[in-house]
């Protein structure tokens, strides 16, 4: 029986294991240094905030693994010996494999700031980081102020977490508006305002110069590069992105770039060794995607794909239309297709932007200036249907069609106020059109064939 070993029990590794089990009887071993059981990494924040206990963020009950004959090993893989087809756990214990899947995820970036390894300085990625946060910032008495460095998704989550315990937070963001490398400026502005509404001290266009130690090697303050200002604090969160967690592979003979280099079949340069999830790096980017995608959904998709390949259906990793989501404090964000920020936008991409006068709601739709093809949408505070946008992107609908059928897409709970009329009239005004919104149609939404009796 073939022996499949997976390093890493995150969403990518576990998806691979589940699908291999569905398709075959192979022996499956998952090795993790982090936790005994798979948990939802994106939900770690809710444990600190008291919304859930750690056991709640484990998607499967503990008996699941034995029942599905997925063996779980707790330990840190220190060496991968591809010639012998074995790996060493904690430097000694050897495990043989026939096929190896590397799914070790990421680790927080550190950019060589002075003081970045002091006590009280941490990232937020792993279960260990969560436990450390309970030590560094258990309450506002122990942690009188926290400074967060890096304005991305993890940074704003960490800010929300700390605020849930009333800890004062200063949020240093390198860009001159929150996450504006990704978000168009209207949306970025909306989030800036929302961050401040939550009493977070947001410092835009501000860089960290150094982290200052007290006499015990613990963080005492940070110094800001631009102004030289010194901010007293008890905890520093480093949330300036993540890097593939692949240091243990240095001497393995597996080709590495920033991540583990893989082809479209998620195969590395070494036979029978695959890499998936955050730690995998495509030789060439797929479409508009980045070569390394540290996203929950792509980890899951790569896991499903590699399972097919390992079970004899060798197929390429072909992600469909891009989508993603996040929540910025109280504001939900969903994106379908591509909407680029001003910084990364190509010439042919045009934006339509609508923002509600008082509520924190906005929508940006990207389309091709010349062909009017619909390219993508960002939506803040209004839920929209994934399935329909996926269909529209495949069918290459034009912007007018999308605007006209906006009511079909709404996914807000029942009785919510609808804003489609307002959005359509703003579009008509901006672009000199006279589109009338079509009424919501169950048939279109559920893609029903007309019934013949």
């Amino acid at each position, binding site marked *: 029986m073939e022996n499949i070993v997976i390093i890493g029990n995150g969403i990518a590794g576990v998806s691979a294991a589940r*699908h291999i089990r569905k398709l075959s009887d192979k022996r499956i071993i998952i090795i993790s240094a982090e936790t005994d059981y798979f948990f*939802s990494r*994106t*939900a770690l924040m*809710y*444990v600190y*905030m*008291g*919304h*859930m*206990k*750690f056991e*709640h*963020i*484990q*998607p499967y*009950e503990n008996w699941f693994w034995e029942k599905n004959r997925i063996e779980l090993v707790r330990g840190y893989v220190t060496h991968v010996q591809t010639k012998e087809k074995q790996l060493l756990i904690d430097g000694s214990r050897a495990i043989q494999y026939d096929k190896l899947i590397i799914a070790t995820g990421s680790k927080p970036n550190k950019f060589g700031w002075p003081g970045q390894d002091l006590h009280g300085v941490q990232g937020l990625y792993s279960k260990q980081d969560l*436990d450390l946060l*309970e*030590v560094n910032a*258990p*309450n*506002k*008495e122990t942690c009188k102020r926290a400074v967060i460095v890096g304005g991305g998704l993890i940074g704003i989550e960490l800010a929300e977490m700390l605020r*849930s315990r*009333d800890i004062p937070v200063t949020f240093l963001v390198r860009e001159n508006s929150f996450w504006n490398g990704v978000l168009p400026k209207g949306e970025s502005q909306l989030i800036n305002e929302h961050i401040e*509404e*939550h009493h977070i001290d947001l410092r835009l266009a501000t860089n960290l110069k150094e982290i200052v130690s007290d006499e015990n090697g613990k963080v005492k303050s940070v110094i800001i590069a631009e102004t030289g200002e010194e901010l007293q604090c008890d905890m520093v969160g480093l949330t300036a992105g993540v890097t593939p967690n692949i240091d243990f592979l240095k001497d393995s003979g597996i080709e590495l770039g920033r991540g583990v280099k893989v082809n479209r079949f998620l195969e590395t340069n070494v036979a029978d060794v695959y890499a998936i999830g955050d730690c995998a790096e495509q030789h060439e980017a797929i479409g508009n995607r980045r070569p390394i995608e540290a996203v*929950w959904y792509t980890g899951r*998709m790569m896991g*499903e*794909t590699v399972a*097919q390949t390992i079970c004899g259906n060798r*197929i390429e990793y*072909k*992600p*469909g*239309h*891009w*989508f993603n989501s*996040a*929540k910025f*404090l*109280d504001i*939900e964000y*969903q994106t379908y297709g591509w909407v680029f920020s001003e910084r990364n936008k190509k010439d042919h991409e045009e934006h339509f932007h609508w923002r509600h006068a008082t509520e924190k709601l906005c929508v940006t739709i990207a389309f091709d200036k010349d062909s009017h093809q619909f390219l993508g949408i960002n939506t803040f505070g209004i*839920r*929209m*249907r*994934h*399935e329909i946008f*996926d269909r529209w992107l495949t069918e290459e609908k034009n912007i007018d069609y999308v605007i006209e059928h906006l009511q079909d897409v709404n*996914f807000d*709970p*029942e009785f*919510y*106020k609808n804003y489609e009329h307002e959005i359509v009239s703003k579009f008509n005004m901006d672009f000199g059109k006279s589109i009338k919104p079509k009424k919501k149609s169950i048939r279109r*939404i*559920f893609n*029903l064939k007309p019934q013949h009796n």
Partner: protein
Amino acid sequence: MSTYDRSMALTGQPPKEISRNQKIATLIGLSGLAIILLAAFNVSFPNKALWLSISMAAITTGTIWFSWEAYSKKLPGIKNDGVWFKSISSQGFWGWIAGIALTTFYIVLYFYPEYLGLVKNGENKGVIALFDPLSRMLSGNPASQWFVYGTLYTVAILAFGIKFMWKYRHNRYERIRTMSVMFFQTAFAFIIPELMARLNGDKILNGGSLPYYDLKNVWPLNYYNFEGYRIKSFLSSGDIGFALLIFGILSVFVITPILTYKYGKRWYCSWVCGCGGLAETAGDSFRQLSDKTVKAWNIERWVVHSVVVFVTLMTTAVIYSYLGTDTSKYWLTKSTFLIGVAVLLTVVFTLVMVFKRKELQKDAQYGAIGYFVIIMALIGMHFLSGDGNVFLFKSETLRKSYSFLIGSIFSGVIGTGFYPILGNRVWCRFGCPMAAMMGFQQRLFSKFRITTNGGQCISCGNCSTYCEMGIDVRAYAQKGENIVRSSCVGCGICSAVCPRGVLKLENGPLQGRIDSNQVLLGNDVDLMTLVNKN
């Protein structure tokens, strides 16, 4: 090791300490309860109407002020910070204290009403006497323990309903739904039946008197609705009495199936029902305590469906017991009735087994067949033996056991008393035969579902954690499947707490409602075909 349970503080970790104003509000609320407690120890209040008003006002004000302090200074959004740090909402010390206090209250209420001051054929004392003025104002009669309970129940739904609406002020579905349960409790369960009692003896009822009838309380939740004494009262109360009886029958066989088909059982369980109303308002702080394991689900299915069988047998036996045998006097005789029941059950059983068998799990099929055979055998045995007892037991024995085991112990003592320990929907999930019957229809024949939004689920677990019915919502959502579960009461909280906008309660076409395919969008189409190939 978990780090959140290090603190030994009874009130939870320091960051979740309640504010000074909340402490005062709690004190005001408790002082209202204290008045009732004093009355229970026979402290005689001089002006009962005044003291009762003070007590009710204090409870209401305390609750509302506490909630105002909790939510008004925060932006609209999900308010679950610290839920698992507070001892009251995480099965901690205060949770157990509250559980024991509530359970004690229910035991006294059901089995020792004399401790509340109930005096048969005489002036009430104690707590019940305190409520006499209000009762006289409404119905003209002195209060009973049930009037006391009804009043406190309504006050709880109203005060905690306001709390719930503030908590979810960004969510119109929750706000409207809560207004609905507040309305149905106050008007239908509390005021209308009391006012109806004023008609008793009036010539509009031909001098008859109506039974106490909460119109929205449908059989089999209202398991006693068709008992002999009630039928007699209905029939002796003229056209109005007859109309109410017909309404009672229609609400079981016509109104409920139609509404459940269109909207799922939520139209009742989380919009109308009093048990649901209390669970959603006063019980909201405990929704996360429901057990989500597969084991609990298996227990739930067997227990709740056994209650359905029990209530069906009991009601059949009770109705049987007061029917006559002479067809010339009245068309509905003992035998016609039993045959009618047998035919109805056979038709439902056959239709389900023929058209919906594939949607039932193996053990559900065996269970259905088993129970069907048992009921039919009992009815058959009765005809063969010609015995006066139907179903081996005296109907009175069945009725009394049901009323004691299910009506009192299960729905009251365990169902509500254990809110802070087992969660707020224990009764609805494990015990309520009405919920089970509507659930059966909801699973097999209804337009309602919770739609999963493509591939957007991040498996975080908020939906499952806050599902009061213990449904592992995430298990479906993370596979891209819609959630179609018989136990879902449609409270909408899974959708509300989802951080990624993945879940939507909606009524849609039957076609494609249950799709067990993995429809994780974002993936390449060819891969999805492979994944879904068996």
